[in-house]
């Protein structure tokens, strides 16, 4: 743990906060671009990124995008407001519902809980990039055919979470599928359809479809 202090809030340093809450401290607490930002702050005095816009580069669905965003802009807001990729939705905005799920370097991530500047240098896949225009990815086809969607608002997030999961575990059991998608909420209650779709998609993808 570095001795550097993070910007304090109400006089409470991060160190004091971590002490009081008893949270486990590891070198991984601050990572990626945020860490670089902090390094920049400590080495080059008074050089702070923001609050104004900073140039960033995002790789989304295989394309490179150069943007200017404020450092506080989340990946979700950058995708939706700047790139017009609106498949990922803003619902809880605090990493609970999974409706904003995208893949970051192949892993499912809540786009509402990641800063756009932190997503630089990583491959981001959204629902729009899952299959070529006019085609359905096998997972999407399985969702349609098993009617694993009603109002559809959580569906892109579910499909992306399902993709990350099946990439990791291509042969899930039903019990595993039931548990695996616990990070995504569906109020229409399509969970049973989703489970069927996961198993169906696994079978389709094995068949090379």
């Amino acid at each position, binding site marked *: 743990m570095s001795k550097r202090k993070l910007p304090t809030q109400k006089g409470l340093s991060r160190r004091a906060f971590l002490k009081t809450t008893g949270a486990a401290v590891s070198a991984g607490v601050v990572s990626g671009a945020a860490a670089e930002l902090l390094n920049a702050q400590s080495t080059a005095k008074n050089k702070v990124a923001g609050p104004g816009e900073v140039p960033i580069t995002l790789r989304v669905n295989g394309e490179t995008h150069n943007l200017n965003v404020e450092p506080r802009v989340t990946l979700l807001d950058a995708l939706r407001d700047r790139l017009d990729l609106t498949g990922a939705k803003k619902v809880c905005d605090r990493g609970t519902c999974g409706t904003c799920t995208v893949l970051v370097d192949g892993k499912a991530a809540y786009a509402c809980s990641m800063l756009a500047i932190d997503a630089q240098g990583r491959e981001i896949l959204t629902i729009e990039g899952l299959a070529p225009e006019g085609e359905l990815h096998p997972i999407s086809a399985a969702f349609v055919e098993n009617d694993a969607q009603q*109002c559809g608002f959580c569906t892109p997030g579910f499909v992306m979470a399902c993709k990350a999961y099946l990439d990791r575990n291509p042969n899930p059991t039903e019990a595993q599928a039931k548990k695996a998608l616990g990070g995504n*909420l569906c109020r229409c209650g399509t969970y049973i359809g989703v*489970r069927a779709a996961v198993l169906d998609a696994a079978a389709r993808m094995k068949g090379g479809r």
Partner: protein
Amino acid sequence: MHPEPPLIGQAVPRKEGRDKVTGRARYVDDLVFPGMMYGATVRSPVARGRIRAIHFDENIPWQEFTVVTAQDIPGENCVALILHDQPCLAAEIVNHPEEPVVLLGHPDKHLLEEARRAVRLETEPLPAVFTIEDSLAKKEIIWGEDNVFKSFLVEKGDVDSAWARAEIVVEGEYETGAQEQLYIEPNGMIAVANPDEGVTVWGSMQCPYYVHKALVPLFGLSKDKVRVIQAETGGGFGGKEEYPSMIAAHAALLAWKAGRPVKLIYDRAEDMAATTKRHPSRTRHRTGVTRDGKLVALEIDFVIDGGAYCTLSPVVLSRGTIHAAGPYECPNVRIRSRAVATNAPPHGAFRGFGAPQSVFALERHFDQVAKACGLAPDEFRRRNFVHAGGTLAVSQVIHENVDLPQLMERAFAESDYHAKRARFARENRDARVKKGIGFAAFLHGAGFTGSGEEYLASVVAVEATAEGRVRVLAASTEIGQGANTVFTQIAADTLGLDPELIDIAPPDTAAVPNSGPTVASRTTMIVGKLVESAALGLKQTLVSSGLPGERGGPEGRPCTSEEFQRACAEYIRKHGALRATCQYAPPPGIKWDDEKYQGDAYGAYAWAVYVAEVSVDTVTYEIRVDDFVAVQEVGKVIHPVLATGQIEGGVAQGIGYALYENVVWREGRMVNAQMTNYIMPTSADVPPIRVFFEENPYPFGPGGAKGIGELPMDGPAPAIVNAIEQATGASITRIPVTPEVLMEALEGVHA
């Protein structure tokens, strides 16, 4: 590959399935208008008070903002619904926390949020009321003369003299908590408004014509100057029945003053804290039975907490009242019900609409009555079920061929109820995790209550183009339940056409007739029937003007799409346009007395028996639902997969209602207004839900269908809590049964 007709009864693809799964479907927050700014709402910090002043912090560049208060409203300051008691923006008095007072508009979302926090309302607090009992006791009069929005009295037979014949009398009191609809898509609207062109709004909603009705008096405009368009809508469950009118009004007021489009999207916390939830309830039962378990007298006192304004409480109360005595026959019944005011945000529509509350009380209570009679819960029900020709509490004679014992037997067979009940009773004694199985029997009326449908007088149109494409025009909204798919099936079957040729017009008050609100399990049964009738009218029109008689006649084989197209082109060439319209007319023999609250409350009922199996950990107080069987009779099932999805979804919400979904109140404010601390079921919490339909076609529904949407919300909570009682012996009388509630109950048992 196209499905062969008839499509009714088949699982055809969901109409909008591909757009949703690929993320192409555009919901309101996905839309961007040129020059658009964002809106935010400044809300009351107190439950009840007089507004003394509104302070604007100096650090905000207010000249860049559009600021709207009640003074800026061009017409009447109310959200028109049943009574016009709810202001659009509070002017002098606030009556609940989060009541809207000031609106702000700015192109920068982040600055807008800072500005919202920089407005301070100075209020002089007034005494407030937060509970049903305090409201009934008139601790403070906060609404009208007695805090009562509405009351009903249902009487059948003579309850007072019947007690003498009752050999056993059982009393009980039951409570249900508020429940947040928690549609995944937060509420939102975009408005374009100015005095020249009028007001147009796009947004997430169930009832475009309700929003229209609210905007007309607010702006003092003629009806044709107000236009409401539904965007793709991410769930409603009743939560987008009434409140969208408020949000549309706010977006439109900002747009009207700013002269540019305004997008107003609620974040999750605002949506949960400020908009409607299911009414909390308290029900008292007093039941008289003979020693052999026949009902002699039922006396029910049902009260719901309506929050600060009347809004939909009278109709929620009505449905809750009519369903309070369930699918049973009792000669002497008195149901007294009241909706009362408290200083909480108004409670409103949520799937089931009053029935889940009163059905919970009844089905929990009847397990207690059975016990008092020394009967098994199923045997007590069997002796009292209503049969064809019998009468419900509102004196409605049941003409449907209902067979509740058969539904119950099927539910028991599918769930292995009897064997499991015996085994759990044996094995629970020494187990830390105790198991239980319980059930509930219930009914749910489809469509508006009493003369409601006649009053609505819904209209649907079906038109065809010269190219032979058919468009269904209705204001009924697709909110995930599958309305567009079901309408397509009905129209395609009636016209004998490929479903690919059927389009559903987007709900837009400038383009579609008023087919009524998308609520009350009425869309398939009532509006679907109008689609069928209008499509039939279209077909008959074409026959009279040359559609091949033998192949295309109403009684003939379906025509080919080429023949249909030729006939459409011919008709349109001669007459200009091809359109058929149908308006609702009640089925013959329906009679309802609004004064006495007696008669045919609903044209048809769905009937059901649900069985829940639970595990209760007596150390951690966790409860899990392990298995769920839902057997119901809903007339003809039009789309087996969509219908099953409706049941599964309702059961999932019912599991949340029973066990997890706890709205924590502090002085009228929901304090756990986030998805992190208001817990709804995830995939991991939902057991296999096994859904079975018994089909008994209803002659006045399209293809024989009745309503289905709300039914599955009514049964799960009592079935689950009945199962908890079998597992633990604890007779719990309120939901949600959180671990804390269970702990309290079990400590009572062990003591």
